[in-house]
């Protein structure tokens, strides 16, 4: 019987996840002891500080790590790709905290409670879960074995299932939570089964050793496992046709949760997808590039066509997120270093646009006290110039007009496809972009071109100031516009981040 050897643990490399989980515990435990009124500021402050600290920790690690190394017996990896993704997740989480702060506020002083919390109840739980989800993601992106991959996936998913359902007074929130739980578990089950097949074929869990062992492996099992892994991750990326949960969950979840989910889940899942495919399956590259290209095209087509006919803004943004999953998969499908840079750069501006646009939706939702539709956005742009203008810039940014770095993101994504020799994939992106124009512009049309739709002035005059949300919108604007103008440093970061991967091409 071999003696159990305690593995060497590089605590510094785990610090982002540890900081976030410690803060989650603090919010939960200390929050109980505080009076109700103090829980909201306490939870939000601790969450914001923890996310900043974790982001800084990831940034420091990023600046130190020239070469990749592994942790805890090769089950986690410490490299710049993971740290880049951790910074993004923490940034998205920080903005989401700002959006969350006043979510419970009842818009017109009515009795009917709505939103995620009321009177300080569940506030501590909310921030705990948000931190846990972020901590799960920072762990997930470091995954280097199929076990840690599954562990991280479930970790942040379970937190998100509960967050989705946390608006317990709204039936739609509960429904969304349940739907997300069932469909998400289905996705996780497929992923797990795929992991089992790959393990069965190769006898290995660690990504690098899977690649080494894949030559002698049973190819049928291995390829079936690979396909199921891709499907499982595609659920989290919300790429069509594995996106069925996305519109309902995005619409039903409290809007700040949607904002966080839309940005951070995509970042984490896509980064892990790239790592898994490039490190563990370089031999099968001809298969997965084609598979991802096909999924990308389906997402582009389905997401855009469905978004065209939506009337609810959150639902439209959900389908837009499906279509952007397609755009994001274009560079991944290219399977090149250029594609890696394209993906990371695209993710930065996409995350900012996502959080920002959902933040504006949240603001409108609070002043209306009902779901935001194209019809009741009327006149919003002139009533609230800053939020209206920001939303317009976000929408134009999503199209790829020069109001955000997404223009360069699309440029890079198409360049990656072209460099790979897949001009048709770039052209699919072009067609999708043209298709997306009407619904993004529809938001601007509703906000600025139509007369005001507000049925009555909210009791007590104009809505109160919501500076945390405004700050989040400002942050999203700075990142989205800044990524266009100061593109060079950001692309350098992305280049450094993907250098730790050996792209087969």
């Amino acid at each position: 019987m071999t003696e159990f050897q305690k593995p060497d643990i590089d605590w510094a490399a785990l610090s982002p996840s540890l900081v976030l989980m410690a803060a989650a515990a603090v919010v939960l435990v200390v929050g109980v002891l505080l009076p109700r009124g103090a829980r909201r500021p306490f939870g939000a402050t601790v969450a914001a500080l923890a996310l900043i600290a974790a982001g800084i920790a990831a940034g420091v690690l990023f600046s130190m790590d020239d070469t990749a190394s592994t942790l805890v017996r090769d089950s986690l990896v410490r490299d710049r790709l993971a740290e880049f993704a951790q910074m993004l997740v923490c940034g998205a989480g920080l903005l989401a905290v700002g959006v969350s702060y006043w979510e419970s506020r009842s818009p017109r002083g009515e009795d009917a409670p709505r939103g995620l919390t009321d009177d300080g109840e569940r506030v501590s739980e909310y921030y705990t879960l948000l931190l846990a989800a972020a901590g799960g993601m920072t762990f997930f992106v470091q995954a280097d074995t199929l076990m840690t991959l599954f562990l991280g996936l479930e970790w942040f998913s379970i937190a998100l299932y509960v967050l989705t359902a946390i608006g317990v007074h709204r039936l739609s929130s509960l429904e969304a939570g349940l739907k997300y739980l069932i469909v998400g578990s289905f996705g996780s089950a497929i992923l797990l089964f795929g992991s089992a097949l790959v393990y069965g074929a190769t006898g290995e869990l660690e990504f690098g050793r899977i690649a080494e062992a894949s030559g002698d492996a049973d190819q049928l099992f291995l390829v079936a496992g690979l396909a199921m892994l891709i499907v499982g991750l595609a659920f989290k990326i919300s790429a069509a046709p594995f996106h069925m949960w996305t519109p309902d969950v995005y619409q039903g979840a409290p809007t700040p949760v949607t904002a966080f989910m839309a940005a951070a889940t995509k970042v984490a899942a896509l980064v892990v997808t790239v790592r898994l495919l490039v490190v563990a399956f370089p031999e099968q590259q001809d298969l997965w590039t084609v598979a991802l290209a096909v999924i990308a095209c389906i997402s582009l087509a389905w997401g855009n066509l469905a978004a065209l006919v939506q009337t609810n803004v959150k639902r439209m943004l959900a389908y837009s997120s499906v279509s952007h999953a397609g755009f994001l998969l274009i560079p991944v499908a290219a399977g090149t270093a250029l594609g890696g840079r394209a993906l990371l750069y695209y993710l930065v501006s996409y995350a900012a646009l996502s959080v920002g646009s959902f933040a504006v939706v949240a603001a409108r939702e609070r002043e209306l006290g009902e779901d935001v539709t194209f019809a009741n956005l009327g006149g919003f742009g002139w009533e609230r110039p800053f939020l209206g203008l920001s939303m317009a810039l976000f929408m134009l940014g999503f199209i790829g007009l020069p109001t955000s770095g997404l223009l360069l993101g699309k440029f890079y994504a198409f360049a990656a496809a072209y460099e790979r020799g897949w001009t048709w994939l770039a052209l699919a992106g072009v067609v999708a972009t043209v298709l997306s124009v009407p619904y993004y512009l529809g938001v601007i049309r509703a906000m600025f071109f139509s007369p005001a739709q507000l049925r009555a002035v909210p009791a007590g005059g104009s809505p109160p100031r919501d500076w945390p949300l405004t700050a989040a919108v400002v942050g999203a604007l700075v990142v989205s516009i800044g990524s266009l103008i100061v593109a060079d440093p950001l692309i350098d970061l992305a280049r450094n981040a993907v250098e730790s991967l050996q792209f087969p091409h």
Partner: protein
Amino acid sequence: MLTTALIVLPIAGAFLLWLLPWATARAAGGLALLIALAELFLWVVALQRIDFASGGLQLATETVWFADLGVSYKVGLYDFSLWLVGLTALVTVAAVAYGMWAGRERPRAYFGLLLFLAGATVGVFTAQDLLLFYVFFEAMLIPLYVLIGVWGGVRRTAATLKFIVYTMAGSLLMLVSIIALGLANDTFDMTRLATSDNQWIFLGFLAAFAVKAPLFPFHGWLPDAYREAPSEVSALLSGVISKTAVYGVLRIVLPTFPEPVADWRTVVLALAAVGLVYASLLAFRAPDVRGVIAYSSLAQMCLIFLGLFAVNDSGLSGALLLSVVHGLVSASLFLLAGAVERRTGTGELGRLGGMARGRPILATFFITVGVIALAVPFSAAFAGEFLILNGVFVHGWGWAVAGAVAIVLAAMYVLRLVSAVLHQDPGPSVPAHALDLRPAEIGIVGALLAVLLALSFWPAGITDHAFGGEPAGKVTSLVERGR
């Protein structure tokens, strides 16, 4: 620096207007006008500084934007782009002044957007990096969308959507071409591009410019957009924005794709010739003032494309001259159409008429611009059209015949327009007390008209000061510059 200043000044002015909360309507308009005039002044400085004898890229600035794919912020002026920048500056002054006089609602937003549009357009005319060119090309869409969508006519929603979707489809194809060309050259710097014989890349660029100009049959967006926009925005759209397509063909397509241009010449010339005659006929049948101007604008753009794709000295000179002249004519006509619409509340020709009686200045201006538009001999437009027909003649006399037919048709539709608005019995919508042009209108349209008359006296002012004036021929100099 001067070139950068030409781009940044109006954009900075736009932000200034948006951020100053205390500006009243008059102050906002005044500030915008001041900035537009300053832009014109900067252009005059550039005109002084540029060396027409040497040709080549001048007043250039370069900063790395992102080194990864060799993309930089590189701007500069050629002698021919200088004239298009001048057109932009002048028409912007006229548009801002007219908007101020017309008293548009939400003036800060409105004038800011006009200035932003001007800055982006100057950016297109000066960008020397393919991606930067694309960024400015797309940036023009944003203010145009809002200007038409918020301040436009009743059917503006459909018009804006059609406009944006058409243009985006063209420019995204151009983006793919830009990527292909840039990756093949390892740089996106236009001055370092090798020539390419790839037809698909060529077609991607051509798609963007054919929609923007527009060239028949890519003009589906044109009538709606020109009809629904505020008149000064239509003036900018048809007078200036369409010329970005001319610049794109001159600067990118002709120097970079000599072989595809030769291969596709017949196709483009045929489209231009058919479009020319077809648009002229439509202009003759159009039921409203703006319809006539819109289709005549389409016809003129087709004529300019005839000159461009003749690819010889005469054709290119004519195309550039006619671009500037048509910019001024079209802007003047749209502003005059705006003046008529303000007085009568309609643009339908059936409800207009007899406006000359008691309104001599309106009649004089309208007829003078109209006569230049129909290219009466000794007018600047005549010089441009003559050069184009001369240039295209070497590729077959048939093209020149089509052009000549169109000139006859132009006379028909312009005279029909003049007669329907000014002559005949007063129409049901023309109130007897409708005023003659007011001093502000006289100043604005008069300034454009004065430049037109000056160019009529001295068209060589442009044709001799473009394309380096080298004896070896404009095409060669253009192609060599492209290297």
